């Protein structure tokens, strides 16, 4: 290091010595200035783990690259959003110790959690049991602030204690869980347009509290179909807007 420092005067002289070195020196300065202007932070954009690759020790995922609903609107109104596990994420029941608001839960890459270990039947999962949908955290860990929207045109067919059912014009039924049911923007029987606001992401599970997230699933023909790649494509579209 001391050798390098002692050479700095020589380097500076060299910078000014010829046209080529002057250009090189200015180029280097330009690069660093640009870095400072852009925040000196590598810009991390959306990236995701492949479908079926769950959190370690959280079960066997289903490898399915199919986009079951092309052109779908991403269910959260705003980006960024983070698809990942609630149970096996930081602060989750089986996850690393910490808060649900830990920044590791609010970062890419996305992780599939369809077929994550559950005790209930799920015939589409390799083990025959598992999680039916995808959990998604909104852009930050704030309750009842972030809107979810209709993923396609359709009809709100049911509002339970912590669920909203949207029968889409595609024939797929979409289910939104854990919204704040005191502030829903829709009612049962109502027709909605793609992108229309439905409710706010919360931690509502009836008398039980869960983490602040949206559980989103897609149901057709009596089965919960894989959601992950449809969500990935919808999210890319949202980011491109």
């Amino acid at each position, binding site marked *: 290091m001391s050798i390098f420092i002692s050479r700095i005067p020589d380097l500076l002289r060299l910078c000014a010595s010829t046209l080529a*070195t002057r250009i090189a020196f200015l180029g280097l300065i330009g*690069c660093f200035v640009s*870095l400072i202007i852009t925040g000196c932070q*590598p810009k991390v954009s*959306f990236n995701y783990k492949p479908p079926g690759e769950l959190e370690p020790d959280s079960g066997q995922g289903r490898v399915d690259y199919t986009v079951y609903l092309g052109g779908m609107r991403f269910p959260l109104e705003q980006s960024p959003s983070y698809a990942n596990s609630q149970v096996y994420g930081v602060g989750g029941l089986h996850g690393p110790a910490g808060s649900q608001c830990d920044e590791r839960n609010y970062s890419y890459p996305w992780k599939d959690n369809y077929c994550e270990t559950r005790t209930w039947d799920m015939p589409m999962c390799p083990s025959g049991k598992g999680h039916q949908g995808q959990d998604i955290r909104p852009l930050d860990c704030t309750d009842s602030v972030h809107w979810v929207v209709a993923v396609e045109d359709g009809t709100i*067919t049911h*509002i339970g204690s912590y669920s909203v059912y949207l029968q889409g014009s595609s024939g797929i039924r979409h289910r939104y869980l854990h919204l704040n049911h005191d502030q829903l923007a829709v009612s049962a029987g109502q027709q909605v347009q793609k992108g229309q606001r439905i409710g706010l992401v919360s931690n509502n599970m009836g008398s039980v509290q869960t983490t602040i997230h949206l559980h989103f699933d897609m149901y057709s023909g009596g089965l919960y179909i894989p959601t992950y790649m449809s969500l990935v494509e919808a999210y890319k579209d949202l980011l491109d807007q």
Partner: protein
Amino acid sequence: MKLNHYHITFTFAWVLGCIFFLLSCREAETGQAAIAQQNQVIIQQSTVNWEAAQQHALFNDSQLSKQQAQVLKIATLPLLLPNEPELIATGIMSAGEDWYAASMKHEGFSVVVSGSTRRVTVPGVEVPNLPEYRKQDLRVTRAEGIAELAFTAYGAIYTISVECEDPENDKHCKNESYILELANKLLRSKVNHD
């Protein structure tokens, strides 16, 4: 110009600086291992076996309000509804040509009964078979505390969901008996087909 090691070192540093700059500005793609496959997703429409459906025990349509009946008339599949007047009275009905849903509430829990003749299929993607509507075949599952069962009957697919305010303790969700009872009490409404 005669090149010496200073020129080389400096040019190398400059190139490194530029590479670093470009790397910082480009969209990071690390971890993006998956590429979506635009598999051919087919919406399959099944044919209703009305002859068989007509053998199903009939619902007392006088339980339905004018508005409820009006909505359900649109559907072109057998309308199976629970024989529970108290529930039906709270029902908000929705329907399209090939589906219907009856959303009902009771104190502490809600029920939705729905049917559809449409299903999403993908060639090459194996989909498990659903049980036929026979008492012994019905299998209850849970979805985030919501009790659910699905079956096929007369060419359509039916689903019943029971959701409780207290999913961990309410017997309507915790036990299978209530949802099975509902399933076995389904009767066919004639509002859309004699």
